[in-house]
Each structure stands twice: as C-alpha cells, then as structure tokens.
C-alpha cells in the first residue's frame, strides 16, 4: 500500500530554490491530514548539507543522492535516480515544482513511473483519502479538479502560490545510491548561458510590471524597468509586444507564453486580449493603466487608471520612491 507524501526538492548552484519550501509546507499539511510522513528527494553533488533546511519546513525524511553525474541537472540522470528511490519506497503522493526544471523532470517521471499527474496546480487537497488537485486549464479560462488512479499520485505546484510554513521536523537523512552509470546517460549539459544578473523571471516574480502595444516601441519599456527595479518586480510583455520584437519571448505572459499568479500585476498599455487575460487573471491584485476606458483589461482590474501611461507610470515611480524612502 502506497504511503507517504513526497516532494522532489529543487536546488541550483548550491542552494535550495524557494519552491522547495512551498512544496515541503504543502506536503506537511496534506500528510498531517492523512496521518503520514513527508519525504523529500534531494539530488545533486555535495547537497547533503541542504537537508537540514528542508527539515525546518516539515520534512521527516530526506532521501539524498550525492553523485557527480547529478550536477548540473539533466533530465535523464535526475529522472533515473528519483524513479529508483520512489519505486523502492512507494509514496502515495509526489509533488514537484512547476518550475522550468520541475516541469521537465515531472513529465519524465510520469513516463518512468507510469502514473498520472496534474500539472501547474494552484491548490491541492485530500478528498476521500485521495489527492484532489486543482489546476487552471486553457491557461485559466477554466479550472479542472484532477484525480489520479495510479501511484504515486503526482502533481506539479505552481511556484509562488502555496504558502511557506515553518514546522520543524527531525529531517532524518537517508542516503541512497542513484544507481547511475555515467556512460549510459544520454544527455549532458554542454553550456549554461546566464542572463543578466538579477533578472527576475515572470514565472517566479511576486510583482510583474507588464507592457503591451501601448508602450509604442522597445524604448517605452524604460519606464517599466525603472518601476520594476524599485519594486523588485519582473517586467512582462503581451504577445503583441513580443511578436513586434520589442521584448524577449521569455517575458511573454498569456496563453502562448507564461501563465502567472503574482501578488501584483500592473498592466500598462495592455488592452486585454482574451489570451492575455487567461494568463494573468489568477494574480492576486491587478492594476490596469490604459488610456482607452473601454479596454477589456479594466473588467479584470482591481484598480484601474484611465490615462496616458507615459505620464502615470513615472508619477507612480516617484510615489513608490517616497513610500520606500
């Protein structure tokens, strides 16, 4: 009988990523309802020291694979190692982050474990002893409640949505052999191309300042960059702005870009095409700044300003400077 709520902890460059604590806290909550333990799988090279940090957020046991072939991350090495320890221990639930790495790894694990998974969930609960995972579909135009009839019941959780709750547990470290034959691994990392230091990805940002066609050109984004810098925010863009070549594809928010749920989404010069609204409607607070009072974005906004964004945004930047001073 499958038992235990497990997570796959995500680490990069020697540090656990924030989503790992969100996963641990969520797993703890569900495990308490089921009366089961929380397990975490931690893979990499020289990662054992990170285990104690996971224990702070409610992890009972940390299964650690320390192997040079697990650094840097590749899909096949990590999926092989994790599938092995999961098969040996048979947890009933397995959570990963719906981050770039987690999305890649989780889908591969679904294949190796021949199970089902709810992707990019915004809520998870236990109903009748089973996992019920709630997730946006059609980029948020509707939601689905997913149930899984195989074990482990897998779900990837959207970063930045699930609360982090401290709850210290023993965090016993269980080392396991990843069982990797380096010569048999089929992929390796040839190169890592880092973006400008300090750039925040829209998928992970607490605040997004986003610009659309109303920015009139790439140079218009300067005022958004300034506001975003002050707020510690990421700069997003609509499909129109990306297709026009004003902003990189990685910044696109919407149904054919990233689906985001920040605490605050400031839409500047974005009219609100349905495919854009789908991608950001689950933001906690939405601000729309647009000179067209009829723009559909205002129907989704908590706060709307009908005016010239080239005057409002710099004024807002000044106000925020005063508040933060």
């Amino acid at each position, binding site marked *: 009988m499958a038992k235990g709520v497990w997570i796959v902890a995500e680490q990069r460059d020697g540090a656990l990523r924030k989503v790992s604590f969100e996963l641990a806290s969520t797993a703890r909550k569900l495990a308490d309802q089921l009366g089961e333990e929380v397990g975490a799988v931690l893979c990499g090279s020289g990662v054992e020291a990170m285990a104690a940090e996971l224990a702070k957020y409610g992890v009972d046991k940390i299964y650690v694979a320390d192997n040079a072939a697990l650094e840097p991350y590749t899909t096949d090495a990590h999926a092989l190692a994790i599938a092995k320890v999961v098969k040996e221990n048979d947890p009933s639930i397995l959570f990963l982050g719906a981050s770039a790495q987690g999305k890649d790894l989780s889908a591969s694990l679904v294949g190796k474990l021949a199970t*089902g998974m709810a992707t990019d969930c915004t809520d998870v609960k236990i109903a009748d002893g089973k996992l019920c995972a709630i997730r946006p579909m059609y980029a948020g135009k509707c939601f689905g409640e997913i149930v899984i009839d195989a074990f482990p019941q897998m779900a990837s959780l959207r970063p930045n949505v699930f609360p982090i709750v401290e709850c210290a547990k023993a965090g016993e470290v269980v080392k396991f052999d990843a069982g990797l034959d380096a010569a048999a691994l089929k992929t390796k990392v*040839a190169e890592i191309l880092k973006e400008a230091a300090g750039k925040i990805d829209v998928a992970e940002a607490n605040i997004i300042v986003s610009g659309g066609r109303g920015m009139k050109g790439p140079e218009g984004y300067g005022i958004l960059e300034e506001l975003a810098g002050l707020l510690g925010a990421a700069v997003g863009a609509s499909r129109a702005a990306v297709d026009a070549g004003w902003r990189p594809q990685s910044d696109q928010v919407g149904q054919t870009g990233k689906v985001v749920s920040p605490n605050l989404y400031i839409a500047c010069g974005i009219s609100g095409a349905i495919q854009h609204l789908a991608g950001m409607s689950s933001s906690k607070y939405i601000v729309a700044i647009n000179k067209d009072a009829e723009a559909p974005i205002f129907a989704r906004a908590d*706060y709307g300003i009908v005016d010239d964004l080239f005057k409002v945004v710099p004024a807002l930047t000044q106000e925020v400077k005063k508040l933060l001073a």
Partner: protein
Amino acid sequence: MNIVACVKQVPDTEAQIKVKGDGSGIEEGGIKWVMNPYDEFGVEESLKLKEKFGGEVTIVSVGPARTMETIRTALAMGADKGVQIDDPALYNADAYATAEALAAAIKGVSYDIIFCGQRAIDDDSAQVGSILAEILGIPQVTFATKLEIDGTAVKATRPIEGAAVVVATSLPCVITATKGLNEPRYASLPGIMKAKKKPVDIKKAADLGVTGASKSKVAKFTPPPARPPGKILCADDTPEGKAAELAKLLREEAKVI
C-alpha cells in the same frame, strides 16, 4: 532523415471557454479549432530538417474526426503523410494514455527525431512529449528554443529561470518545441491542393494494441473564480494624482508594496 511531428487540434487562443452545466467538460459548440501553436513550431522545424537533410515528415495526431483538418494543415505546410488515431476510448485520454497511443503508432514509422509542442494550450499538461520519450526509451529535450543537428549529434537550447541551458544528446530523440524555435510558415495554395492527395492512415486503439485507459481524469471542470468589481481611480484628475492614489491603495489596502 525521417521525422515525426505530433500535433493536437485545440480551440483557438481567442476562443471563450464555457464549462458545461454539469461540470463534465467544456461546451464545444462555436469553437474554432486550430493546430496547437506549439505544435506548429514542431512541424516547421521538421520541414526545415527535411529541406536540409532530405527524408520524410510524418504527422501523428490523436483526436476525433475534426482532427483531420489539422493533419491536412500540416501536410499543406509540406509534411508527407499522416496517421490519425481516432477512437472514442481516447477522446478524453490523459497524457499517459495519449503518449502510449502515439508511441504505438510511431513504432510503425521509421524515425530519427520526433517533435511535440512543449504543451497543448487546451489541457496545458506539458507531459506528452516526455512520456513518449520514456516509452520509446530515447532521450528528450523539452522547451527547445534552438536546435542544431550534426550527424547524429544534437544540441538543443532550453530556457530556465534566468538562464538558458544547451543540452547535448544524440538521435533518435524527442524534442518539445516552444516559441522562439522558428517562425512557422503558412500553407501555400499549391500546398493545400497537394495535401488533399497525401496519405493519412486512420487507426483505432485496438489497431495499435492500446486500450486508451487513462491514469488520471478531470473529475470536474469549473469556471474560473469571479473577480470582484474593481475601481477606477479618479479622486484627482491629473496623472500624478491618480498615481498617488494608486500607490496609497497598493500600500494600505492591498498591502502588496
């Protein structure tokens, strides 16, 4: 080089999605169906590889009768033949069952590389390509924005948060395509005419030796939670006044800055 591109027919991005009254699915009436935009990048990359290395491009799709239109679109872009897996047992299939059916169909085709979209914009699962690679026992690179092939050596670039990783692997492999990989071509009129005569095999689940049994299901569909009506800020008519009011609300009411 023989290439397989998996495609899915999905509602157009501009489509309004309405949940059925009993929560069993979405209302399909009035929806305009198109090729999943991420699959278009896979089809385009297939055609570019065929132009460079020669060979054949096979389109494989799981879906009901209307899906034929999407397969024909890919054939009109320049693909050579198609396989449509049309079986009611697979109409609501999850990612695993879909990948199993695709894998069974692809085993009957000669392939060096397989393309899928990184996700379909209807169920947003982002799983099928990876599961397909696992079932076939071949390597995968997901969310590729750049692809280079030299002999059997493959280099694919995938964006992660704050960086891009260049992954090296070898053929045969599965690549899931995302925006940035290329600019999909439009079908030409002669292409559309030729597509009508290109062969498409229609298969049932039983023909492929799969049952279509899913591991997971959507127990209930719900509309997105309603947002309370917002306010238009107009206490002061100047841009500066409105900005000041907004900053105050964000700080004191929403408490987000």
